[in-house]
C-alpha cells in the first residue's frame, strides 16, 4: 500500500516532474491540469492522502478548490509561484497544511509531504523493501519475518533511506537529518553506519554508493 498523492498543476512540465519524483520516492500519483479536472478527480479518488496544489490554475483557482478538499478532509500542500506574504497567509488560513514557493527543491518538498502525512496520521506505519519490513510503531525491523536488531542511529538512517527510496541523499544531508545539526562528527560516520546496514540486512546492491553524491536505496 502506497500513499496516494493528487498533483494539481497546470504546467505540464512541472506536473510531470512532480509525478516522476513522487513515484520514485514510493508514492502513487494522480495528476490534474485545471480546477474543474481537479474537482472531478476528487470524486473518483476517494482514497487520496494528500494534494499538492498550484494556486494559479485555469478554471477554479487553488484557493477556490479548498472547499472541495475540506469536504473530503484531504490535507493540502500549496506549491505556487505566488511568493507574497498575503497569499501565504490566505493559503494557510484557508486550511492548507503547508505552503511552498516555486522555484522549489524537490528534497524539501518530499520532506514536507512526509511531515504532513505524519501530522495528519496518514503516513504509512509500515515500510518495506525487498524482504525487509520496518514497523515504525514498534521500531522493529524484520528480515524474512525475523527481527533484526539495529542500533538507534542505524534504524533512523535506514528509515530515512526508505522514506526517500530511489533518491540519492548526500552524506552531509544524512548527517544533518539523522544526527542533527549540532553533531560534530565527520561524514565517515555515515559510511560506517551504511556499512553496518548493508551487512546486517544483506542489502549490498540495494544501498548504492553514488560517486560524489552519497547513497541511494534502490528497489
Amino acid at each position: 500500500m502506497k500513499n496516494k498523492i493528487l498533483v494539481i498543476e497546470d504546467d505540464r512540465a512541472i506536473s510531470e516532474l512532480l509525478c516522476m519524483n513522487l513515484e520514485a520516492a514510493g508514492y502513487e500519483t494522480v495528476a490534474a491540469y485545471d480546477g474543474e479536472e481537479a474537482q472531478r478527480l476528487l470524486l473518483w479518488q476517494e482514497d487520496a492522502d494528500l494534494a499538492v496544489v498550484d494556486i494559479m490554475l485555469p478554471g477554479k483557482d487553488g484557493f477556490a478548490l479548498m472547499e472541495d478538499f475540506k469536504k473530503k478532509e484531504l490535507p493540502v500542500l500549496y506549491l505556487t509561484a505566488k511568493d507574497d506574504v498575503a497569499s501565504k497567509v490566505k493559503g494557510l488560513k484557508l486550511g492548507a497544511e503547508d505552503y511552498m514557493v516555486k522555484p522549489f527543491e524537490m528534497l524539501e518538498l518530499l520532506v514536507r509531504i512526509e511531515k504532513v502525512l505524519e501530522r495528519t496520521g496518514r503516513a504509512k506505519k509500515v515500510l518495506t523493501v525487498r524482504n525487509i519490513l520496518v514497523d515504525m510503531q514498534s521500531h522493529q525491523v524484520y528480515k524474512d519475518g525475523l527481527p533484526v536488531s539495529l542500533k538507534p542511529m542505524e534504524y533512523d538512517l535506514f528509515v530515512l533511506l526508505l522514506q526517500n527510496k530511489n533518491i540519492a541523499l548526500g552524506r552531509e544531508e544524512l548527517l544533518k537529518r539523522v544526527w542533527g545539526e549540532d553533531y560534530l562528527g565527520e561524514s565517515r560516520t555515515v559510511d560506517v553506519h551504511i556499512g553496518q546496514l548493508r551487512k546486517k540486512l544483506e542489502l549490498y546492491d540495494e544501498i548504492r554508493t553514488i560517486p560524489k553524491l552519497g547513497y541511494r536505496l534502490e528497489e
Partner: protein
Amino acid sequence: MKLWKRTVLLMLVTLLCALIPVGTLSLYITGKRSLNNAAETYGRQLENGKILLEQFWDNSKYEQMSETGKKAYMGFQFQRCCGSGMALIDKKSSTAIENLTDYKVVGIENLGLKNEKDPYAYKIQKLGKKYLLLQKVALSKPEGYEVLSVREVTGLFTELRQTAVWFAGIYLAVFLMAGLFIYMMMKRTVEQMEKLQEVAEKQELLMGALSHEMRTPLTSIIGYSDTLRHVKLKDEQKDRALEHINREGKRLEALSGKMLQMLGLYQNHAIQMEMTMAGDLLNHVIDMEKEQAEKKAVHLKMECEAFSMKMDPALMESLLINLIDNALKATDAGGSIWVKAYEKAGKKIFEVSDTGMGIPEEELGKITDAFYMVDKSRSRKEGGSGLGLALCVKVAEIHGGCLKIESRQREGTTVRAIF
C-alpha cells in the same frame, strides 16, 4: 499642500521681498534728489538776495531815520533785493516785517532747521494739500533780521506719487509674469516627473513579469536535471526529462530573442525607413509562413492593393509575422487566415484575420500588455512568450500607426495595423 505648490509660493514670496525694498529705495532716492535740486536752486536765490541786501544796506543812513522812515527804508531795500516768495523776519519778535510770500508766517522760532549756517538746509511743511519748502538765512546787516524763503513744491510730490504708481504697475506686471512663468515651469516639471514615474512603474511591472516568465522554465529545467542526477529513473522517464529540459530551454531562448527585439525597438537608431511596395512585403511574409501553415493544415491567403509606404521592412515583416503566428496558434486545422493590404480613406491598412477561437471581450484591452496571455497553458504549449502583440504595438507606433483588434469568440479575430 504639494511640494511643487509650496516651491512656487516660496519663489513668489522671495521675489516680492526683493521687489518691495528695491522699489521703495529707488523712489526715496529719486524724491530726495529732486528735493535737493529744488533746495539748491531756491537756496541760491535766497543767498543772492541776502548778499544784495547786505551790499545796499547803509547802516549810518538807517540810524538817522525816524521810525516811519526806518520802516519804509527797510521795506524798500528788501523789495529791491529779494523777490517774491521771501519774507523778512524780525528775530526778536519772530514776526514777518515784510512778507512777499503768499502765506502768513506763524511760529517761525520753531522752524528747527538742521544747520542754521547752511543756506541750502531746508524743511518741508505740509499745508493742506500743498507742500512748502522752507529755507532761512540770517542777515549780518541790518543786525537781528533774517530772510525766510517759502516755495511751493507740490508739483515735485505729485510727480513722485506718479512715479510710485508707475513703479508699482511695472513691478506688479513683472511679478505676475514671473509668477506665471514659474508656475508653468514647475507644473511642466512635475508632469514630466509623474510621467517618468509611470514609466518606471511600468518597467518594474515588466521586470516582474519577465522574472516570472523566466522562472517557470528554469524551475522545470533545474528540477529535471536535479532529478536526473539524484533519482533512479527508468530509461523512458529519462528521455521524458531530457525532452522537457530541451523544450523549456528553447522556450527561454525564444523569450530572450523577443526581449532583445523589444530592447532594440527602444533604441531607435537602428531603424531604417525606406519606400517599400506592400505587395513585396506580403509576398515575403507569406513565403516564410507557408510551411508552418501547411503543417497545421490552415489555408493562408493574401489579397493586396498596389501601394507603397515608407517603412522599415524588417520591422514591418516582424509585425506581420507575429500577427500571422498568433493567428496560426489560435486556428485549428481546416481554418483559414487572410492577410490583406489596402488603402481606405487615405489610410494604409494591413490586416490579418483568422477563423480561430477568438478572444473573450473582457480580455481585449489587456492582450497588448507584455507577458499577458489569454489561455496560459495553451499559449505555453504553442511556444508563446506573451510578447508578440506588445512588440507589434511598438512597431506600429514607430511607423506612426496603431493596432486595432476586433474579435468574436469562436468566430475569429481581425487585427488591423493602420498607418
